[in-house]
């Protein structure tokens, strides 16, 4: 159990069950050892800051760290443009950055790449994170995994996901090593139940959604995480051809929920898919309570690339500075300005949308790539596209029907 005070009360991190709880001041007071001594950095750093963002945390809950931008698989949708000769983070530097995160009381770190299994000091870095009270998690293609490594990985990482967009032998994929990915999943699952699949959604892979969830269920995996294709690195050249269509975006949430029931598998969706969830107008309180949120870059989330640059999230096109200065950025309303001022700078239809506070205009990486403007609404959001929500259509039809009968 780990507690971090915040301006609203505090965050309580539980290892078993794996939960992060936002507590109000009254409940948080039970866990504060000395309320005067351990004040939230948020209030110290942000006096007079230009932004009005009230929900800003004192530090991210998780940081995504790319240890290496080296990879031999050459996936066409790689957002970091990983190559066999890409930059690699020095392990000593990685551990120093983890120390800073521990000082800021970050709870989780997601280690990725490139291919992190090719990073020689992966286990040492992960053990260092554990030693400093941070839970390390891992995403890998599975290339080069053997039984011994699988066992050692499952001992230190909290959650391991293997990237797989299409079941082997079932059609076009961004990658060629589908059997390797499946074998890796089988190996990892032998030693831990905290193993899952990362699936990048494109207009081609969308058709494989059922099969991927079925495969996860068959292998007894804990979860599937669905990711939106992002226009970074090599993916920027295929983005407009491969992104999901508007009708697939609309179909996504109903399909995901029905598959979750059918296969009894937990399905996570990444923050950039939030507009496709909110389009169906789910209950705001439920969304807020379960943190089904859109862009939390620079607040709940931060990213560090293999060259040691701090970003608001891994996909952000903007480098904020060297990651060694992260403590000056966390909880600072004057930092990550593009992200922290979104609620003021986003135009219509976001400005008047009921879901603005949670959605925050969709994915910045996508919006900037397609419009060239940092604070433009996500152009792929069905609401921005002007597609009528089924809920609104039903409501309008009922109102007009009632009007007619009178």
């Amino acid at each position, binding site marked *: 159990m780990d507690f971090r005070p915040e301006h609203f009360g505090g965050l309580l991190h539980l290892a078993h069950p794996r939960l992060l709880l936002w*507590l109000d001041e009254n409940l948080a007071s*039970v866990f504060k050892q000395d309320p005067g001594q351990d004040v939230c950095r948020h209030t110290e750093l942000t006096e007079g800051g230009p932004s009005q963002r009230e929900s800003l945390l004192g530090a991210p809950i998780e940081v995504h760290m790319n240890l290496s931008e080296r990879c031999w698989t050459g996936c066409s949708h790689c957002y970091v443009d990983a190559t066999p000769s890409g930059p690699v983070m020095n392990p000593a530097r990685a551990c120093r950055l983890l120390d800073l995160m521990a000082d800021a009381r970050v709870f989780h770190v997601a280690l990725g790449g490139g291919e992190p299994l090719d990073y020689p000091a992966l286990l040492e870095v992960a053990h260092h994170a554990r030693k400093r009270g941070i839970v390390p998690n891992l995403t890998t293609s599975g290339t080069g995994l053997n039984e011994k490594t699988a066992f050692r990985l499952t001992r230190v990482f909290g959650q391991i996901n293997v990237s797989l967009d299409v079941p082997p032998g079932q059609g076009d994929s961004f990658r060629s090593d589908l059997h390797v990915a499946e074998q890796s999943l089988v190996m990892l699952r032998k030693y831990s139940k905290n193993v899952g699949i990362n699936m990048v959604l494109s207009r081609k892979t969308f058709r494989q959604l059922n099969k991927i969830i079925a495969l996860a269920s068959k292998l007894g995996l804990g979860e599937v995480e669905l990711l939106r294709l992002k226009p970074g690195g090599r993916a920027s050249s295929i983005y407009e051809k491969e992104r999901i269509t508007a009708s697939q975006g609309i179909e996504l949430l109903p399909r995901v929920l029905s598959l979750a029931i059918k296969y009894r598998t937990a399905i996570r*969706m990444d923050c950039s898919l939030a507009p496709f969830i909110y389009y169906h107008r789910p209950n705001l309180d439920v969304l807020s309570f*379960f943190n089904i949120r859109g862009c939390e870059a620079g607040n709940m989330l931060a990213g560090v690339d293999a060259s040691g640059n701090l970003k608001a999230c891994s996909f952000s096109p903007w480098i904020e500075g060297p990651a060694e200065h992260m403590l000056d950025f966390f909880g600072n309303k004057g930092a990550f300005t593009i992200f922290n001022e979104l609620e003021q700078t986003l135009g219509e239809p976001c400005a008047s949308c009921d879901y603005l506070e949670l959605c925050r205009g969709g994915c910045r990486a996508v919006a900037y790539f397609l419009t060239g403007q940092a604070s433009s609404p996500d152009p792929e959001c069905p609401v921005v596209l002007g597609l009528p929500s089924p809920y609104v259509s039903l409501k309008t039809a009922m109102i007009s029907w009632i009007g007619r009968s009178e």
Partner: protein
Amino acid sequence: MRQKKEKTRFSHILSLKTGLNPNSSSLGANTTWLLVWSSALAIFGPVLSLAIRGIAAVRKKDKPGNT
């Protein structure tokens, strides 16, 4: 005159996040909760609050110096 009873301040869990996110690029929200917990939300929060408060009270009591 009878003094007005002070209003009890209830403790609240404002929100929660389950699981761990291994992805190096997103926050990862478990959308299954939309389905499963929508109807149970009304009772889940207070019950969990009570449980945590109970655990915390026991821990406080067990600390040396507390009687």
